């Protein structure tokens, strides 16, 4: 792993440091949304927003069609633009492990991090919540930092029925993620943004993961859903 390092914040391949990563094997994902549900339960994630989500796309031409699922989450980028965009250091990277986390009590809600994340991984929490008093600040996936530091795997990984999500330390050559990333062709999302994402996909088709031509003609029914969604979730 002798990658050219452009920013001092990067921890991939740095001796003595851990660099957690997730491998998502799209061949095994059945789109059951179990991970979304486990995540919602783990963090009391409010209605309408997601720390992890499983978008799908119907691809192909009849009769050769399939549903292409692509679980998404924060990529815990090695060079995260959200961290450098935050004016008050409310979003930061944990050096040992590479988690990108939030100081909820510092966040002023300027949404600069949301604007700078190329992956839409961040969202604004609602003004009031029933069980949790963290409100009106930006939130996102934490790679289950609280579980991982206690030796547990993230909630979505544990729950995945297809074992499509694999988690571990990429800097440890003996880990399963390191083996998968070294021996199989993997892809990350939007590598051209220079973020060095640490969620690796096996079996990802970039024709389906890029901005699709569908942007030109969004389906009418989806457009209605989208408008209804936007009405209820103003940023």
């Amino acid at each position: 792993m002798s990658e050219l390092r452009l920013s001092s914040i990067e921890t991939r391949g740095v001796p003595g440091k851990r660099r957690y990563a997730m491998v998502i094997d799209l061949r095994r994902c059945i789109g059951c949304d179990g991970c979304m549900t486990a995540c919602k339960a783990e963090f009391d994630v409010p209605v309408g927003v997601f720390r992890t989500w499983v978008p799908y796309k119907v691809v192909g031409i009849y009769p050769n069609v399939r549903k292409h699922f692509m679980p998404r989450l924060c990529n815990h980028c090695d060079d995260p633009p959200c961290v450098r965009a935050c004016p008050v250091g409310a979003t930061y990277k944990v050096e040992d492990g590479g988690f990108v986390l939030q100081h909820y009590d510092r966040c002023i809600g300027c949404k600069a991090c949301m604007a700078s994340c190329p992956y839409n991984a961040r969202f604004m929490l609602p003004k009031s919540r029933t069980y949790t008093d963290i409100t009106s600040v930006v939130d996102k996936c934490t790679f289950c930092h609280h579980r991982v530091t206690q030796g547990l795997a993230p909630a979505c990984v544990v729950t995945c029925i297809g074992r499509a999500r694999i988690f571990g330390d990429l800097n440890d050559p003996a880990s399963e993620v390191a083996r998968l990333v070294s021996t199989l062709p993997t892809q990350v999302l939007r590598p051209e943004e220079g973020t060095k994402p640490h969620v690796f996909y096996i079996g990802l088709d970039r024709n389906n993961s890029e901005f699709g031509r569908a942007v030109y003609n969004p389906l009418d029914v989806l457009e209605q859903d989208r408008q209804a969604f936007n009405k209820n979730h103003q940023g």
Partner: protein
Amino acid sequence: MGDFNIFHHMPWSSTYSIYFFTIGISAALFFMSTLSWYREEFKTLRSSAFYLSFVLLAVSGLLLIGDLSKPARFLNIMNPAYLNFTSPLAWGGLNLLSFGAVSVAYFFMMRKNDEGLSRKLAVLGSLLALGLPIYTGFDLTVHQNRPVWNTPLMPILFVALSLVSGAAVASFLAGTNEKLLVMLRRFMLWSAGAVAAMLISLLGTTAYGGTGQELTFMFMTSGALGGIFIGVGILLGTAAPILLLLAPFGRQQGGVMLAALLLLVGGMALRYSILVGGQIVQTYF
């Protein structure tokens, strides 16, 4: 990804574009007040431009704070233990504050008729005022994933837009002062020309860019956003006033004011469409 089941929305709403508009005018008006110490023509603008600049600065500050989801925490941006200097917003916050402080000091020195200090503060304030459109431009430029924003043109475009809109507002304050109107007409003409030149290259690089750029170009040149960007921003709000100012009528007071009005409408439309344009495509990702 049109048929994906999760929706995203734009982080930065139209409040930001109004902020860009008011802070740009505030900065340029301060600059006009500074000019009054060095150019006779601008003398009548000294206090009126400054007062309006100050009011707009206050309005801008409120807009910015009001747009935060935790407005009461805006003081965090002044906390040295929190400040993150890789963020243009942090620089912008400091710039705004120091500009505000210099404006207050300038107000008192003018009231005391202390010419020496007023001049110094005016120059210092102007430099800080220049920083405001520059930082707003950088605010957008640094987002490498946003087409249209991520270009070195942005800070310069915002400086030019600030001058256009500021000169346009100043022409309403100028009244019948002919010499001043001549100067303001030149200001408007040159800065609107610069805006036009930059918009042409912006459109070119966007249209010939990658997928995201190409789609952004499509959104910004068609439909409702196309109407605002091309129709109001470029044609009505930049090209038309340039032509008007070049025509004989554009040398009269009525002509200058009509052009100023169009430039203001155009300036707002351009800021809005650039802000929204840079975010629209990603909501589909």
